[in-house]
């Protein structure tokens, strides 16, 4: 292939969008490797500690868009201590030095400070898009820097970040001449913004298509905004606290009826019953609806709303929709691909919630369903078997039965057969989360059938090491395995140590692995970082009299070519 003209190869590679395809072709031969590396524009780093930023920038000098992920997934559920790591600064610094043409940056579960944002804003003249997902460490001052210095910014998308509120002036920092915004999402901000400034910003950005307001934005403001931006495609409504008897409400309804392009709605933070009527005019065009932030909206209002949404593809709701509501979804939303049902009241008795009946109804009514996140209080094997039969196209199946170790309430059996049916039927399953009472049998099924599985989350499941061994042996494509509160110990951990180099990471917490086992793993596999998070007080030195038989409370293992990290805090021991 060495006589192949390079520009032809490069032209072909332009059609290869996915990172995996690009990685694959770059290993074919040296020539292809070189062509690929100079032509790669989008770089994805799944674990910020797997490789040093400088290496990435050196390999891909033409990088325009960078996406980096930091903390392990269980950090979302407060299992990872605050200053564990995942700092954005090394990545930003490296990009400043080597890729000043950077245009897009996406960071997930990383620590970003105001200084980092300031450096970012000042260093990249072509910067267009900043997406921060589940990050922390910054305040509205950092956002002010972005607004001030990123002329030509097109996208500022803040999803579920922890942002400190230092006042509402950051929005005013968008210069009067800034007209380039296409997407602005500040729904996760707790503080207020200046309404007038917001309305003027929206009015002067003719390309604005996606706008997600935070809870503090009033309905009056929303009205002004919607009136000035009728071409919005994606809207997060802000508080939506409005009395449907008022003029403001009428005006809102008028504004919405003019939004012919609106296809995605979310927000409704303080919406109360009866006020959703204003939104009815846009329902027939909605493909995405997120009502999961609105606990005051009960099933009846949801049903009235959803029964108009024939084109819905993605629905996020709270479980107060009930089985009855899900039946309406099933009969109305034939295009539904993704459903997420969140618990509305985890401290309560769960009087209004969903059961296996709702899920079965959805599965029989929505044949295109491929992604599910479902919180419920009970599930039966029969239901799961039916769901598996109805929906063989699942790529993501995450079921959370809120009570750990809960068996099938009808038969008192574990849910092995139900989940087994899911993995057997859904040949393209890439992500699976288990719950309920489960024995080693379910892991045997998963190992046998879930050949495409890439991410598996296990909690309170299994009987013995065999469970974990089945998984590691059988799931050829496994990339991320996260386990908590399962009886898996050193035997399972050490059974096939080379497997972990084919995966991105392994997380085990509250299991039976011991310090000795982790040390053995670290000794055998120098290209893995084996990190122990030790949160017990008073012990910060690994050497101090801690027996190898001591259980490792939290262990995080990941492959890396960067060696042990140098920014680990005291409570993280790298073995």
């Amino acid at each position, binding site marked *: 292939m060495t006589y192949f*003209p390079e520009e032809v190869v490069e032209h*072909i*590679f332009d059609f290869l969008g996915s*990172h995996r*395809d690009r*990685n*694959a*072709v*770059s*290993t074919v*031969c040296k020539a292809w*490797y070189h062509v690929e590396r100079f032509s790669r524009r989008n770089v994805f780093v799944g674990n910020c500690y797997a*490789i040093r930023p400088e290496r990435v920038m*050196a*390999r891909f000098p033409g990088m325009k868009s960078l996406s980096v992920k930091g903390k392990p997934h269980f950090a*979302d*559920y*407060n299992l990872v201590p605050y200053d564990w790591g995942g700092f954005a600064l090394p990545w930003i610094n490296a990009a400043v030095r080597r890729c000043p043409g950077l245009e897009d940056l996406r960071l997930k579960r990383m620590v970003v400070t105001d200084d980092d944002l300031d450096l970012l804003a000042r260093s990249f003249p072509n910067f267009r898009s900043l997406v921060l997902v589940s990050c922390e460490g910054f305040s509205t001052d950092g956002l002010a820097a972005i607004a001030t210095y990123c002329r030509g910014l097109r996208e500022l998308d803040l999803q*579920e970040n922890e942002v400190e*509120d230092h006042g509402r002036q950051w929005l005013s920092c968008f210069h009067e001449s800034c007209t380039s915004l296409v997407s602005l999402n500040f729904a*996760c901000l707790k503080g207020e913004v200046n309404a007038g400034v917001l309305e003027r910003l929206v009015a002067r950005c003719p390309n604005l298509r996606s706008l997600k307001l935070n809870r*503090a934005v*009033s309905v009056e403001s929303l009205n002004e905004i919607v009136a000035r931006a009728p071409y919005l495609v994606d809207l997060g409504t802000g508080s939506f*606290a409005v009395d449907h008897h008022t003029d403001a409400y009428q005006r809102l309804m008028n504004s919405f009826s003019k939004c012919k392009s609106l296809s995605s709605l979310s927000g409704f933070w*303080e919406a109360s019953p009866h006020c959703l009527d204003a939104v009815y005019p846009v329902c027939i065009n909605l493909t995405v609806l997120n009502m*999961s932030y*609105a606990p*005051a909206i009960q099933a009846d209002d949801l049903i009235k709303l959803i029964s108009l949404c024939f084109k819905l593809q993605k629905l996020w709701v709270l479980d107060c929709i009930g089985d009855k509501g899900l039946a309406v979804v099933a009969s109305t939303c034939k295009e539904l691909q993704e459903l997420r049902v*969140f*618990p509305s009241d985890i*401290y309560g*008795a769960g*009087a209004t*919630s969903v*059961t296996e009946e709702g899920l079965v109804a959805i599965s029989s009514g929505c044949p295109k369903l491929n992604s599910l996140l479902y919180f419920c*209080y*009970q599930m039966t094997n029969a239901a799961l078997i039916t769901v598996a039969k109805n929906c063989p196209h699942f790529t993501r199946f995450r079921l959370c039965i*809120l*009570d*750990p*170790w*809960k*068996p099938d*309430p*009808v038969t*008192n059996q*574990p849910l092995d057969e139900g989940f087994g049916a899911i993995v057997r039927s859904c040949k393209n399953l890439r992500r699976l989360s288990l719950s309920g*009472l489960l*024995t080693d049998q379910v892991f*045997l099924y998963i*190992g*046998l059938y879930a050949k495409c599985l890439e991410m598996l989350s296990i909690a309170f499941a299994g*009987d013995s090491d065999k469970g974990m061994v089945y998984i590691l042996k059988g799931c*050829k494509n496994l*990339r991320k395995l996260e386990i908590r509160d399962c009886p898996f110990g050193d035997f399972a951990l050490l059974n096939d*140590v*080379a497997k972990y*180099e084919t995966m991105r990471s392994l997380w085990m917490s509250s299991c039976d692995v011991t310090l000795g086992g982790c040390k053995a793993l670290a000794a055998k596999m120098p290209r893995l970082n084996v990190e122990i998070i030790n949160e017990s007080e008073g012990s910060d030195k690994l050497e101090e009299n801690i027996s190898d038989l001591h259980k490792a409370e939290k262990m995080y293992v990941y492959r*890396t*070519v960067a060696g042990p990290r140098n920014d680990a805090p005291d409570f993280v021991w790298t073995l």
Partner: protein
Amino acid sequence: EKRSVGEKRSLFHDLLSGFFGLILPPRFGFEDLASLVAGATRAFLPPPSSDPTSRPGTRVQEAAGRSSSTFELAMEEDLENRGGACPQLLDLIPNESDWMMAPEASGEGRGVGGLDDSEDKKLELKLGLPGGGAEEAAVLSLGFFSKASKTTTTTCAGARRGLFESAESKSEGPRQEQQAGFLQLQSRAESGNEWPHKAVWAGGKADLQQSHAAPGGAAGPNTSSQTRAAPAPVVGWPPLRSFRKNLSNSSVKPSVELQNDNVEMKQKFDNNKKGLLVKINMDGIPIGRKVDLKTYDNYEKLSLAVKELFLGLLAAQKDTPENENEEAKQAFVGLLDGSREYTLVYEDNEGDKMLVGDVPWDMFVSTVKRLRVLKSSDLAALREQSAGKEQQLKVELNEK
């Protein structure tokens, strides 16, 4: 010289037909080419193997031949192949520390040169690694090796015994397994696990049937008091982001459930919540009001509340019916801006007069002592007053 796209395409056809042994349809375009290339590289990359002389073709055949073997056999082979050794790929990196330094030292050339000795190994593998990026390629494409490995179809788990002798007994005896499982649950209970269900399930199935008496078809969830009485908090469970856990607490929902899930606790909590009542006066209105700042959580709401408090009084001053008085209503527009007729100001715990709206709400609530709705025209006078104070302070400090 640059070739035309048409020339490139026909060149491609020839090369690819030769290389892959394919007959391509005439309209085969670059996009199709790209997906073909991607698919082909995925299929032909060798799986990790300790046998450097094995060629990709044979491996695929071997894989096909193995397709009828059972899961257990496949697992055995995996064990042999992996056998604790790293995949062949990673061994191509001769000296990691050198490798790390190379790019910084002198750019790409050195990196490429440094791996020349592994070229031979690469050739043996037929589709070998390129020079400079073995490291990252290894990291990034390890996933492919697993993907390209044998596509074993599996027969029923119980058919053959393999590594795990319990495989057969598993299909025949799920009950045994379960009981074993329950016993294990019991032992976990003994070890002091705090989840309340443990006590319920100790002792086997009989107890289970009693405690989980949810009749089939019952609409609601299993609400037996044993299973969900004030669960002890388990960190990180349920797997929900924090902001979702507090959603119903901070909403306008009429029945606000609190973390303690207990009506008495809720009442106690309400009694303990102190209101923050501050006086509020408005220019031109002799009667003042009091407002409870704890009932609002942002400035917009406060502004609306101020309007509600004084609208009637203002209208009464002007001697017109309350509901019709647009003029009066207008007075309350832009309270926070300083741009309209009236402006909202406050006095803080240091005695200074401040404009409402500058600091975050929580900070405002903790420092405010009283509120005033000021005629904006009076703001100037106020500024002079405070400017005078500032001057005085400056003079005093300089004199020290």
